[in-house]
């Protein structure tokens, strides 16, 4: 990304984090959304519904030309004029010329992301055509000369006082900051526009090929008026909205409102099929209908084997609503029409790859959005792929190039370097923590203290552990990962202690290296492949199991290695063989029916679900089973235990001020439980939460599950 774009992003983030109105609006919304949304799905099977959405859209993508032709044929048979626009300019010019040809001077528009995307308003205004947004939120933003920060609730970032000022200026008298009156004012002002407009422009939520139908979903009723009152209707619809059959609409009509606004169905669904009767100045006639099928990068997206699944997006924005980053910064930080995770993907295709470079970086990779997406889109993986392609184009930034390729990719250099660093970190450490970093790095330690690099890494400590397991029932390899090896060796020694007690011998293959995920997350697959091979070689011994205590590392060995080596079948086979032996520590114990002895310390424990343990490995119940087996552990759940702690690997170093806010939310939830111990199964989260608790003066023991189990053994 260019330095300028980077600076703009950083400035936008700062501005957003300092905007109290925005923060409180988004905070209270995010807190209530999941509950409301889940209630709306109580009478529908979410998985079954999203399967239907997925099937309908996937079918359409596979038969795109056929369905587009069919749609055009059916719509034209019924009197519509269908125009295929290749890009924004093409679509804008078509509408402008149509206005000029028909002598249209005023246009009303109902909410449509596609027309936002092509900047239609700006284009028509430039040609002296008066266009008015009729969705309340969009109208407010039009008056403010701003743009939406959310796909469904465009003006969520504004207060009623700000709305009052905008309205006062528009109508020329003082409007009070009272919502009901503001809505009534909008009704009256916009009604005049509806009654006098020469053209109504809409988007389209669905385009049904079989019947040539456009379906529109609204709550305010503005799409009904837009499609009824003016004599000409223009619908701008992306190719990805095509579905084959009339009945295919059902799943989308059920899923979209449930996921968007926790409604069973929106107040209005309007289906327009061809020309419809109208009355203009007392004359009965047929209304003119123009449908613009918009490409603008869509066809490239829909023919891309990886990104075609983005066609399943219903524009419900639930991915934004559950995103811990969006909650902190809102939509404007993303700087483009489509915000958030899915936004960076759509932006890449609609506005160009480079345009999305800064926004894709906002994703922390927690995968929560994918759980909620009614189109079952794997948003985080698509972002990683986007990042990979961007990196391929422009290379890694210099500092990462040295760090990732030069050091991470060379494990001997990295291990030596870390050992050396442990000797020279003296001036900045304070006990076991680094509480302040000098100058340029100070922002990183503003929110959390860092662990100091261990005096003796786990790889050296294990050599001196005398494992008193004479006739072991099983021999396992421990794949530690960098964080345990160099920052938290005590997690490793605890693990050995617990397993030895169960008569299991632990071996540590010394040639194991970093799992490569940091490289992958920066889009550097070359380093990922190199490390994958090295680790496969290290872990191929005749072990009964390979035990991990870091879910990110586990995910890398289970899926990441084989994925990265997809082009090399022999290596992929070896990767899969190694993968089949991996068990996460808590999973391994829980599956054995392990019970924590009553000798452990009395603790009131709350548990933080690490993103990768929960949403990749799906093991969130395993550590709970193990911890709850002790009479000495009083287990309490915290609110939103599955929301990211803000670590996200290098994320907390790249965007420390955003990560800080995510962390603060988490610590608030922890404190509210009154627990004396915070447990987790991920050393990354441990780094974030231990450091965070230390910095924020939260008096709580932050521990990996292995450490709790090893007490008093």
């Amino acid at each position, binding site marked *: 990304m260019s330095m300028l774009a980077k600076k703009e992003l950083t400035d936008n983030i700062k501005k957003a984090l300092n905007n109290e109105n925005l923060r409180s609006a988004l905070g209270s919304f995010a807190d209530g959304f999941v509950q409301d949304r889940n209630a709306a799905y109580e009478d529908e099977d979410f998985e079954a519904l999203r399967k239907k959405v997925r099937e309908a859209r996937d079918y359409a993508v596979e038969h795109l030309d056929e369905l587009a032709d069919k749609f055009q044929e059916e719509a034209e048979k019924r009197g519509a004029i269908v125009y295929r626009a290749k890009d924004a300019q093409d679509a804008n010019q078509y509408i402008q010329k149509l206005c000029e040809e028909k002598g249209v001077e005023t246009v009303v528009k109902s909410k449509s992301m596609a027309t936002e995307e092509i900047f239609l308003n700006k284009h028509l205004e430039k040609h002296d055509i008066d266009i008015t947004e009729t969705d309340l939120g969009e109208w407010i933003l039009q008056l403010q000369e701003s743009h939406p920060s959310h796909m469904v*609730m465009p003006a969520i970032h504004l207060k009623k006082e700000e709305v009052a000022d905008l309205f006062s200026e528009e109508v020329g008298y003082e409007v009070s900051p009272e919502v009901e009156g503001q809505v009534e004012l909008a009704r009256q002002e916009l009604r005049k526009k509806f009654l006098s407009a020469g053209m109504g422009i809409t988007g389209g939520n669905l385009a049904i090929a079989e019947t040539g139908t456009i379906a529109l979903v609204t*709550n305010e009723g503005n799409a009904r*008026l837009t499609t009824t009152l003016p004599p000409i209707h223009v619908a701008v619809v992306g190719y990805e909205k095509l579905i084959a059959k009339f009945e295919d609409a059902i799943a989308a009509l059920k899923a979209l409102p449930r996921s968007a606004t926790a409604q069973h169905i929106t107040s209005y669904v309007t289906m327009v099929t061809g020309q419809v009767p109208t009355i203009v100045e007392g004359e009965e006639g047929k209304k003119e209908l123009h449908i613009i099928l918009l490409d603008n990068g869509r066809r490239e997206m829909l023919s891309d084997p990886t990104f075609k699944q983005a066609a399943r997006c219903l524009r419900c924005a639930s991915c934004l609503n559950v995103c811990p980053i969006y909650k902190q910064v809102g939509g404007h930080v993303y700087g483009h029409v489509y915000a958030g995770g899915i936004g960076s993907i759509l932006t890449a295709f609609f506005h160009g790859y480079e345009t999305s470079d800064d926004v894709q970086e906002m994703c922390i990779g927690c995968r929560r959005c994918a759980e909620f997406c009614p189109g079952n889109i794997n948003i985080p993986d698509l972002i990683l792929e986007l990042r990979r392609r961007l990196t391929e184009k422009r290379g890694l930034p210099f500092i990462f190039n040295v760090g990732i390729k030069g050091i991470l990719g060379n494990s001997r250099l990295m291990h030596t370097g870390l050992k050396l660093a442990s000797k020279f970190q003296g001036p900045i450490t304070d006990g076991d923590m680094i509480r302040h970093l000098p100058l340029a790095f100070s922002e990183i330690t503003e929110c959390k203290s860092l662990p100091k690099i261990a005096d003796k890494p786990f790889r050296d400590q294990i050599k001196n552990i005398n494992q008193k397991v004479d006739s072991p029932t099983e021999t396992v390899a421990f794949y530690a990962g960098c964080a345990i090896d160099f920052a938290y060796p005590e997690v490793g020694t605890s693990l050995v202690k617990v397993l030895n007690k169960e008569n299991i011998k632990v071996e540590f293959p010394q040639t194991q290296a970093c799992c490569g995920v940091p490289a992958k997350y920066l889009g550097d697959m070359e380093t990922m492949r190199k490390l994958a091979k090295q680790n496969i070689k290290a872990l191929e011994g005749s072990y009964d199991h390979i035990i991990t205590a870091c879910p990110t590392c586990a995910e890398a060995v289970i899926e990441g290695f084989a994925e990265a080596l997809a082009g090399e079948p022999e290596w992929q086979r070896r990767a899969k063989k190694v993968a089949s032996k991996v068990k996460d520590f808590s999973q391994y114990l829980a599956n054995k029916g392990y019970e924590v002895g009553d000798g452990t310390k009395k603790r009131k424990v709350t548990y933080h679900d690490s993103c990768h343990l929960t949403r990749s490995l799906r093991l969130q119940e395993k550590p709970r089973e193990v911890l709850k087996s002790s009479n000495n552990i009083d287990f309490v759940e915290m609110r939103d235990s599955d929301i990211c702690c803000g670590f996200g690997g290098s994320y907390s170093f790249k965007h420390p001020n955003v990560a800080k806010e995510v962390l603060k939310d988490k610590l608030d939830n922890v404190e509210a439980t009154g627990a004396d111990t915070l447990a987790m199964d991920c050393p990354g989260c441990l780094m974030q939460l231990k450091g965070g608790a230390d910095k924020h003066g939260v008096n709580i023991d932050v521990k990996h599950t292995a450490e709790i189990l090893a007490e008093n053994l």
Partner: protein
Amino acid sequence: MAVAEDKVIGNNLDELYDRFVKKAETLTTQVYRAKSGNEVLEYIQKEVNELGAKKVVGHESELLAEIGLKGKIEGVDVKTKNIVEEVETADIGISELDIAVAKSSTLIQNAESYEKRVVSMLPKTHIAIVKTNNLVPDLPDAFEVLREKYGTAVPPYLAFITGPSKTADIERTLTIGVHGPGRLVVIFVD
């Protein structure tokens, strides 16, 4: 789970009606059930009185023509002819809806007629008359009815209406009645 509950509901009209009412209440939709045309008129009269309506427009479907709106409501002259000029300033619009979906309290209408459309869009109150017989359990059932009736020749304008017009665009404060009617009254007629 409520999914199981659906099966229990089945096609019994009374149960479907109850389900419709239960959902409608959460959306502030007022629902009545009338045994006869006269009873429909009584409910309309009640609404007119309560709202203090001065001007009422109605779109005469076969059913509404049979009930006969004109001259039956005290205090107002219900307009059913040339309503396009009147509808913008009317307090109440009356029209017939074709299908009622119990689960979501949704009404579906073939709204090809321009007059029929504006009657349910422009006035602040919309009174929807539906035959109780036309209640179906869920959205897929409604699509089945539409498919049977029209095949692929779907009407040029199909309207689905669920509760009043609403917005939460300012500070997420739910406000009723933006561009469409703020009050929706549904009268089922047996």
